[in-house]
């Protein structure tokens, strides 16, 4: 197990280095840091002097090492637009995005398990058929379209929920303001959360159903039934446990997709999170902020994927052996 852990962590570091290399390449080629710093009206001579001072004429490896050293100390450059350290700008926007992701995750976890299990236990019930029909429609509607249609229906036509922003928030600690403590905050976060979960929820219902159907066919479930164990105990304790392993792996992969979906959801609802910030940074060609976003998001991906892999390795002995050998 220890060898597997070391191997997995080394892979994570290698991927992170690759991402930092991409980030560095972008920093060097997108936009001109000198022009952002001093503007156009500086003579060629001072320009060269500044280049020398800033170390822009150093060899590639020296510059990259410096970039990496700064990044490790949390210095990802200064945003051209906000005139603040890029990492600070992102950390200020992060809580809004995390709250949105939290709301959506709550919906996905809370609904996909009972609905998935129910449709597997009673595949022919009318309710199951309705759930499956709704979920295939749900999978076919892009996240941004769900968001737009919800705004049209509930904000424009019915006027039930606000269509943009976070509304009234309560300050908790540091950069973290929460939506979950005021009624207005709840009203603002409900629609974005539903929109964000609108493709993943049906996906997980279908996944849990498929896995559960397979598990219910297995010998040990039949044996448990023959032994006279209560049905709910068979379904939720014996069968569900073995259903969750593949769900964990898919869940790990989906975290990345979730980050991409936050960009779409935040754009539609003008949610002041880091996804909307990234698109604005791209439009302003705010290179340090783009690079910082890339590195922060890459870091989130790599860390969550490594953790998910380790959990999977711990939870499933067969996989553990197979992967350790590989």
């Amino acid at each position, binding site marked *: 197990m220890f060898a597997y852990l070391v191997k997995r962590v080394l*892979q994570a570091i290698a*991927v992170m280095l690759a991402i930092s290399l991409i980030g560095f390449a*972008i920093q060097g*080629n*997108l*936009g001109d840091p000198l022009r952002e710093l001093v503007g156009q009206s500086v003579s060629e001579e001072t320009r060269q002097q500044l280049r020398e001072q800033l170390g822009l004429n150093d060899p590639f490896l020296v510059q990259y090492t410096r970039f990496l050293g700064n990044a490790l100390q949390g210095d990802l450059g200064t945003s051209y637009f906000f005139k603040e350290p890029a990492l600070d700008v992102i950390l200020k926007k992060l809580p809004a995005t995390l709250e949105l992701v939290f709301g959506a995750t709550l919906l996905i976890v809370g609904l996909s398990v009972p609905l998935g299990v129910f449709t597997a236990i009673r595949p022919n019930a009318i309710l199951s058929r309705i759930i499956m029909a709704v979920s*295939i*429609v749900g*999978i*076919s*509607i*892009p*996240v*941004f*379209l769900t968001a*737009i*249609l919800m*705004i*049209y229906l509930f904000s*424009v036509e019915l006027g039930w929920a606000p*269509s943009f922003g976070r509304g009234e928030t309560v300050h908790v600690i540091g950069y973290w303001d929460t939506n979950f403590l005021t009624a207005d905050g709840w009203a603002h976060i409900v629609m974005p959360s539903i929109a964000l979960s609108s493709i993943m929820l049906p996906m997980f219902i279908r996944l849990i159903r498929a896995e559960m159907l397979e598990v219910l066919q297995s010998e040990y479930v039949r044996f448990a039934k023959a032994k006279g164990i209560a049905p709910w105990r068979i379904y939720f304790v014996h069968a569900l446990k073995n259903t969750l392993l*593949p769900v964990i*792996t898919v869940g*790990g*992969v*989906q975290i*990345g*997709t979730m*980050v*991409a*979906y936050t*960009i*779409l959801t935040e*754009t*539609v609802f003008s949610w002041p999170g880091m996804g909307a910030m*990234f*698109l604005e940074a*791209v439009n302003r*060609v705010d290179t340090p902020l*783009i690079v910082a976003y*890339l590195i922060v*998001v890459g870091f989130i*991906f*790599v860390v969550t*994927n490594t953790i998910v892999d380790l959990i999977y390795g711990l939870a499933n002995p067969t996989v553990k052996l197979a992967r350790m050998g*590989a």
Partner: protein
Amino acid sequence: MTDQSVENTVLQARHAPRLRAFWDSNIIYAFRHNPVAIVSFTVFAVIAVLSFCAPLIAPYDPYDPAQIDIMNSEYPPAWVNGSLPEFWLGTDDQGRDLWSTILYGTRLSIIIGLCAVVVQAVLGITIGLLSGYVGGRTDSILMRLADIQLSFSTLMVAIIFLALTQALFGSEVFGQYAVVFLIAVIGVAEWPQYARTVRATVLAEKKKEYVDSARVLGFGPVRIMARHILPNSLSPIFVISTVQVANAIISEASLSFLGLGMPPSQPSLGSLISAGFDYILSGSWWITVIPGVVLVVLVLVINLLGDWIRDVLNPKLYKG
């Protein structure tokens, strides 16, 4: 089956016309007896034929600035008050006939989706065959790469790649080559889906006797992979392809919605929806909702067909 009846079926098959044999084949039989599949296929065929005949059917050419009059913008569809008879689905924010623009836009969305999946399939099948057949170090390196590629969501990779290309080239140049960029990025980012599935079937097929006998006959590895193993791994490829086309169309629409795909001058369904979103609060819902419905119906019927094909072919798909 007895020898006699086998002989009979063989004889029947030989004498029956080709069309008849096709009509009686398993997959067509299953198709004829599944109303959902029939309806989905019909709807898909209608959308595909209409959109590919767009230059013949569409009353206006949305790419021709001479036919667009800004004064015509935001007319509602025919069943709403204040509409013009010549625009039965209304007009968009630039004064283009929505019906014509949707026809052209759907064609673009389908073309990008199909081409992206072809790129995915070619890359993924080649890598999957290689990985499964050669095995050893090549296999473990390629599959590790697939793991890493898969852990970064396609949409995320595409957003970052397209955002950077757009910032680098400027939106003018980017708009001209948007189709190529979209196909390339959606195509490259999803190859592991195919590679893993193909590899899994290759590993199962490789051990079978027909592969051994082909090898004994002295055929080279490329010939064995392409002519012997590949045809036997086609059904899972078929199954994922439908789902992949649906996903590619969704990805393209999402990217265009973010302004990272097709420019407003050559709208796909996604960029049309995006253009309409600015007007939805002022009540011009049709610019967004009508192309939105077309997009959902298109993706939905492809997904339904995908589910049906999976149930019919029922291959042991590689999971995880």
